[in-house]
Each structure stands twice: as C-alpha cells, then as structure tokens.
C-alpha cells in the first residue's frame, strides 16, 4: 500500500480544512495559546507583526527557528510561517522544521524581484497573496495550494483587502460570462495560463481555497470579508496590537462563523476596548505599500 505525500489533493485539502476559520499572527508561545483558546484554526508564527515591520523598517526575513519550534510545542493547531518571496532556502528551512503551511509573503522583504518559489518542488503546501485574478492564477501555476487577498498588511485599514476581493470576484464573474473562444484573449489579458483560466470560467471559482488578509481589525471587518466570498480570514496585527487580544480574537472567530447574522456580530463587537490605531492606506507613500510587492 503506497503512501504518497505532498500531492495536490493533500496540499489543497489542508486548506479546505481551514475554511470558515480565522488564522492569527503570533510572535510567541503565549500569544499562540491565546489564539488557540480563542478558536483560531491555525497560527502564523512570525517575529514581528506587520504593524511593527512597518514601524521599525529595515529588511524583514524568516523568523528564528527556535521561536517557531516553541510555538509548535505550545499549540496543537496547525502552525504556519512566512518566507520571503523567491527565497527557496528559507522555505526549505521552514519545511525541515515541519511547519504546516508556508506563506510566501509580501510582508517580508522580497528576495527575488522576478521569480517566485517553485512550490511544486516542496512537500509542504504554500499560500500566496494576490491582488487580482491573474496574480492568483500565476501563483497557482507555480504550485500555490491556497490564495489570500493581500490587502495592506499592518494598517488596520480594510479598504485594500476589500478592493482585492472585489477585483478577484469580479474577474471570475466576467470569465464565466465569456464565450469559450474568447478565453484565449482573456488568458492573455490576465497573463495567466489558459488551462487555469478555462477551469475558472467553467467552475466560477478559484481551484484553491481563497482567504482574505491585510488590514482586518474588527469582527465586522472579518464578517465583511466572508460576505465578499472569502473562505476564511487571516488577522495579523489586528488582534495583538489591540487593547484586549483574547476577547478580540474570540470575537473575530464568532463573527467569521456567523458572518451573515448582524445580531451575533453586534454581540461579538461589544466592549472589546481599543482596536489597533491603524494607518489610512491613502496616507502611505507608495514605496511603503506592501501589496504592490509580488507580480
């Protein structure tokens, strides 16, 4: 009986199990436990949350393996970690640590401004960011088993995530309305492989799970993203940069499950204390916008 690891079904299937859930950024074992207790479906282990990367500047890299292993030891839920775009050695290191998913992330400083990682070459699955359908399909073509909208990480401003979800959804709906002989040009315009374009046109959805990320800070933000068709939500700085992380984390989990019930969202939103202060994306000079990294 041959057991095969790292297949497309096993990689994409892992993301299916996270659907309807919240994945939270954590920087140490204590935060990871708070996230697990609040009902997170997974944690993203990283040294600095995006808001701090933004504030402190400099080059942002893969986290210390010691720190990742401490978080793996602290919780029983899946542990994800970030590698720089194109940095396949960081990805190999993370794979050797046994992380459950790698985020090839624009939040870290890219290591390669032309190529992303060849993700088919790994047993561990990858999630990648996208701002539009073409970008999502290019990442899937390189082996990404899960896609997330990029949003603008570390701001607490949900407007970019909203824009990316509308863009991806809109482009999928447009493809579904085209004649089959128009898909060749559509593939050219999207700069995406024809086979994937055709698949999306036929099924009306991405071939992998689509989460949303970047700027989500409140239960209502999480529910808004679910209403836009997200399969689940990443919350980065929004929880542990707020006044009461444990309560806010649990509230965001509730609102993600009952995204279509305003009463539940209202209850979850009560008395949460200070939300992260946040930055308006419009006030960020273009070179500091993370969503524009990756291509």
């Amino acid at each position: 009986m041959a057991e095969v690891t790292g297949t497309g079904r096993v990689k994409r299937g892992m993301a299916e199990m996270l659907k309807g859930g919240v994945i939270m950024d954590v920087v140490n074992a204590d935060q990871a436990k708070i996230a697990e207790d609040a009902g997170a479906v997974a944690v993203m282990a990283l040294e600095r949350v995006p808001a701090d990367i933004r504030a402190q500047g400099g080059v942002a890299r893969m986290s210390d393996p010691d720190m990742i292993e401490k978080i793996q030891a602290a919780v029983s839920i899946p542990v994800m970690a970030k590698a720089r775009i194109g940095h396949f050695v960081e990805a190999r290191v993370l794979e050797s640590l046994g992380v459950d998913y790698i985020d090839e992330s624009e939040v870290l400083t890219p290591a390669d401004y032309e190529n992303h990682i060849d993700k088919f070459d790994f047993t561990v699955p990858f999630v990648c960011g996208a701002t539009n359908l073409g970008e999502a399909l290019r990442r899937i073509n390189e082996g990404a088993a899960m896609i997330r909208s990029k949003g603008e990480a570390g701001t607490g401003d949900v407007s970019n995530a909203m824009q990316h979800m509308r863009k991806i959804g809109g482009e999928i709906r447009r493809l579904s309305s085209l004649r089959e002989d128009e898909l060749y040009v559509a593939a050219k315009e999207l700069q995406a492989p024809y086979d994937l374009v055709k698949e999306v046109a036929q099924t009306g959805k991405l071939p992998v799970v689509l989460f949303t990320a970047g700027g989500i800070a409140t239960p209502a933000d999480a529910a808004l993203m679910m209403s836009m068709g997200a399969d689940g939500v990443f919350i980065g700085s929004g929880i542990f940069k707020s006044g009461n992380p444990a309560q806010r984390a649990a509230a965001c989990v509730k609102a993600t499950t009952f995204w279509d019930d305003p009463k539940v969202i209202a209850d979850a939103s009560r008395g949460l204390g200070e939300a992260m202060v946040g930055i308006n994306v419009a006030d960020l000079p273009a070179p500091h916008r993370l969503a524009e990294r990756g291509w």
Partner: protein
Amino acid sequence: MKVGVLALQGDVREHINSLIDCGVEAVAVRRAGEIKSVDALVLPGGESTTISQLSEVFGVYQLIKDRIASGMPVYGSCAGMILLAEEILDAKVGQKSFGGLEITVRRNAFGRQVDSFESDIEFADGSTGLMRAVFIRAPWVEKVSDSVQILASVDSHPVAVRSRTALATSFHPELSGDDRIHRYFIEQVARPALEKVK
C-alpha cells in the same frame, strides 16, 4: 432522509456535495432549530478544537451531545472522528468531544502536514476494490470497545470504525470524489438505525 452537516467550521460544502450525490437531502446546520430538524448529522473535517469551542459558545454543544447519545445517526471525518471519540489523546487542555463512539483517538497521530498522504486502502463494506483515501494531519484510533467494529486500517492503526449508529473515518472521502463512505453511512448506518426507531 434529511442529513445535516455541522457548519461551524471546516469543509462543509464538500460533505454536502457528497451527500447530494448519494441522493439524500443535505443541509448546513449551525443553530439549535436547524440541528433539531435533521434525521442524521455529519461532522466535517476541520479543526476539532475550533468546532467544539464554537459549539459551546453558540449553545449547541449539549444538544448535539444529547441527540447523538439518543441514537441520531452520525458520521465524522477526521476532526469529526475526534469529536465523536469518548477519549482524545494529545488533546488541547480542556478540549471536549460530543462522544458517541466508544473509541480512544490520537490527534495528529500520522504527523504534521508534511506527513499528510494519500493511499489506496481496503474498506470492509462488502464490496471489492481499493478506495483512495486522503489523510490530512489525520488522527488514528488507539482503542475500541466491544461495541465498535473496525472497517479499515493503515499500518495496523484503525482509520475507519463504526458502532450501531455512528461511523468515523480518519480520512476525507469528501475530498477524493469516491462516495462509497457516504453511501455506506446512509445505507448501512443511518437507514437501518432510523427504521428501527420507527
């Protein structure tokens, strides 16, 4: 027969599609009224700690536990198997299950995601032919009581088990496009159990 899929978190849609392919009415259920309205229940794959916690937060934990205890037919895949186990090893501190199957389950027993795998296994439903099974951070069964029958094993670890009214698998038939497990649940577990009640 109306079958509910518990829709607090996890791969709900895939289970609904598999059930519909088997010709039964399938609905996502989250609220007490919805859970009370179904004849049988499926606990999907997902994160067992999240699902059990949300069931408590939204006040349906006891209802589900009671309905399973009183003989509602139930099937759980992966996280669903953990939620049906009377005893969980390597659990999160304080993690609760609904119970209903007298088994001891070890969480993430096959390892982390890099160890997740597909394999062809034999399933004792009376038909011949191997079944493609997808294991994702999967649990296995360490101990069963006399009331529990083992239907499939991998490396001598049970990965599919049943009692009179409950079925559980470590793997995800909802992902592999093979509807033998869902069909088995409906025809061999749920239908006989419901007819007996009538």
